[in-house]
């Protein structure tokens, strides 16, 4: 197992490097740079000022030079400063990461806590009324794009009914800021985001339950005369949940990547919107920093999922 882990880690390094090179190349190829971003029709800049920006950031240097400069700085732990506002990249990522983790983990928790038990429930009652209606609902849940759900939710619950705030993480400048108000702001966006997770986990759990319920060892357990409840909770569910763990694991990277649509609609300042800003501003240090963090996080999450899977399922052996 340890050998496997070490091999995985070693493999990950060239993957991360490859990703940073690809992203850097993409930005290089892209038309425009941060100097072009600053210019707007309404407030003119002179060509000299634009050239001065390019000089300051070294944008005219050859691409490999700039890439290696960045790598050199990163090795020393310095992610640099954003081109667009001069603030430290690491700070920006940290802040947005905290906001994103709050939002996504809330959605994931709801997804697991609601979706998995429901999947067990309908897995035991195939083709019943519950099964059909909840399965139908889960289909709806995975068919609705996040921004449609978000817009509808915003429209209905915030604009029309006024039950929830229209955006942001907490009230600012006004009234009490406490745990409840923060949670109040979190409810709508996390519910919107969790819809997809609830639907997905419910479906996979159901599917997995059906497979296991018809399997030999479960039938044997029933045949032996064990009570239904015991069979379910001691045999069926533990086996059925294994593939679902992989599915949940696939969602873990989202903790870092964010959910750009939900963040946009609910003004949640997370990683998704930061990424969009970085691309729009051709903000190379920020883009590279974010991609590095995301790559490391994604690879780490995948590794973690595989380990958990191996721990939970004694049949799995890595060598």
């Amino acid at each position, binding site marked *: 197992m340890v050998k496997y882990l070490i091999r995985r880690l070693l493999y990950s390094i060239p993957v991360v490097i490859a990703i940073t090179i690809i992203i850097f190349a993409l930005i290089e190829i892209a*038309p*425009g740079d941060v100097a072009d971003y*600053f*210019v707007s029709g309404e407030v003119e*800049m002179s060509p000299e000022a634009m050239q001065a920006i390019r000089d300051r950031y070294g944008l005219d240097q050859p691409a490999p030079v700039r890439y290696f400069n960045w790598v050199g700085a990163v090795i020393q732990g310095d992610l640099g400063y954003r081109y667009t*506002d001069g603030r430290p990249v690491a700070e920006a990522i940290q802040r947005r990461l905290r906001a994103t983790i709050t939002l996504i983990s809330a959605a994931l928790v709801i997804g697991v806590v609601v979706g998995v038990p429901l999947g067990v429930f309908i897995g035991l009652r195939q083709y019943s009324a519950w099964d059909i209606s909840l399965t139908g609902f889960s289909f709806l849940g995975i068919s609705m794009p996040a921004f449609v759900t978000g817009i509808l939710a915003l429209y209905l619950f915030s604009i029309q009914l006024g039950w929830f705030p229209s955006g942001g993480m907490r009230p600012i*400048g006004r009234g009490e800021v406490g745990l409840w108000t923060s949670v109040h702001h979190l409810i709508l966006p996390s519910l919107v985001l969790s819809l997809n997770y609830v639907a997905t986990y419910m479906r996979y759990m159901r599917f997995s339950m059906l497979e296991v319920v018809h399997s030999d060892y479960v039938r044997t357990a029933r045949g032996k005369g064990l009570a239904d409840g015991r069979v379910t909770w001691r045999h069926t569910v533990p086996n059925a949940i294994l593939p679902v763990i992989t599915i949940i694991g696939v969602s873990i990277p989202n903790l870092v990547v964010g959910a750009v649509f939900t963040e946009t609609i609910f003004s949640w300042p997370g990683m998704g919107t930061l990424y969009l800003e970085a691309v*729009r501003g051709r903000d190379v240090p920020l883009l590279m920093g974010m991609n590095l963090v995301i790559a490391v996080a994604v690879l780490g999450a995948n590794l973690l999922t595989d380990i958990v899977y191996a721990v939970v399922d004694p049949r799995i052996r890595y060598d």
Partner: protein
Amino acid sequence: MSRKLLTLLMVLAVLSTLMVASVGAQDEAGGGGTLVGAFDVGPGGAPQVIPYFDTAGRDWLSKIWSPLISWDETMSGLVPEIAVEWTSNDDATVWTFELREGVLWHDGEALTADDVVFSLNLALDPEAVTSFPTLSQLQREAVLSVTALDELTVEIELDAPRPRLPFFMIFLWILPEHELADINPAEYQNLDWFFTNPIGTGPFMHDEFEDDQFWALVPNPDYFRGAPKLDRLVNRYFADETAAVLALEAGEIDFTYASGDVALGLADEFDLYDGPSGVTNYFIFNLRNPALADVRVRQAMLYAIDREAISETILEGTAEVVPCISPFPAMWPEEYNDYAYDPDMARELLAEAGWDSSQTVEVMTYYDSQFHLDAMAAQQAFLADVGVNIVPVSQDVPTYNSYFYTGEGWDISYRGIGVNVGNFPFTFYVSGGWDTVDGLPLAGEEFPELVELLEAAQAEADPDAYLGLLQDICAFQNEIALEGYMWTAVRFGVGSPDLRDFHWFPAAGGGPYLSNAHLWYVEE
């Protein structure tokens, strides 16, 4: 004992009354409540900018720092800020600025001419500031020297006559030399000082800042125009306008910018603050394309598009048709061609010019707001009606700018430009203004008559004669339909009805203009 005690008690009583009275007097600064606004939403805003890196967002910056000179409340003239008087020598190569007496920094230090000298040198330092928009037109080489003649007088010597130098000084934020003298200019942009402990001379002082969330200020009791009435002024950042407007409606904030269609819908419950945007929306034709070099084709396009109808309907009456690049009527000549909607005339001219109606022309733009997309859809329909097929192409800002200024890669572009008396886009119409591939002006052709007028205007010191020359330029542009001038829009700010003595103006880049923030207060 009793007499001494009585005297003592009386003295104490008087003293305490005085103390209470003085404390009470200090409390006159404040008591106006907390005002939360989305000051950096909209085209004039830019969240979290610092002085000299402000291509926009100057409205908020002017709450903390003061420029040397400022626009007045309605962007129609200049008013004193740190400088109270400015004069030049006969050929406008040496300017002298008299500074205001008694201006104090937020930390209590006195402002002197050294601060102004320091700020201008920093602004022009090639190591430090690199995105100084309009002042950068001044160019480092143009300023020969900046000297403090005495405590409150600054002299600037230039390499060539600059009659309108004061208009550049609007963008000169005065920074404290005693705080920043030792910084490394190359690290200026990365200074944390601006967000942790900024010192300015503006009506408000720094209180609290949280990245991506808000910036809160408290009143500066020593502000040179008077102590502010508000207890707290907060600028809250929003990802987009819709979020800000929703917050306004929910009562979470007191003010935001809103685009015309949205603002008009809020007129019943909120107060609208409107003003001319000072931005002209227009088609710029690339005259390198022989079809567009024909004046008849350009005029035909103006006749073909019913600009009045678009202004009335799509832009809901918030726009005014313009005859040339300047959006202000003061800069228009007495008589001009209004190119009133006439599709038959358009077809005639196109036929005369031999326009090939099977070709499609791309119109590049960076606009992505619904307003502009709708307007472009209408333009497309009108032009298609007379046989001109355009295809709007929306791109993001860096992509657009990466090729636009080279003069190639586009035939027509729909864009906006901010123009006012102090800021005319000369560089667009003369060779060498931008680094185009063929060295010609941006649009591809140089008109000697126009260049003559432009050069005369740049050198003209007399304001009336200057305005007259601008009108002549306008007439020239209008006559040959040099560009496809569409309209200039009114822009809106929307505020809570509880605001009193509040002022907001849609200044390009946020101004800076006189908003008199020290007079604002919120009615409970």
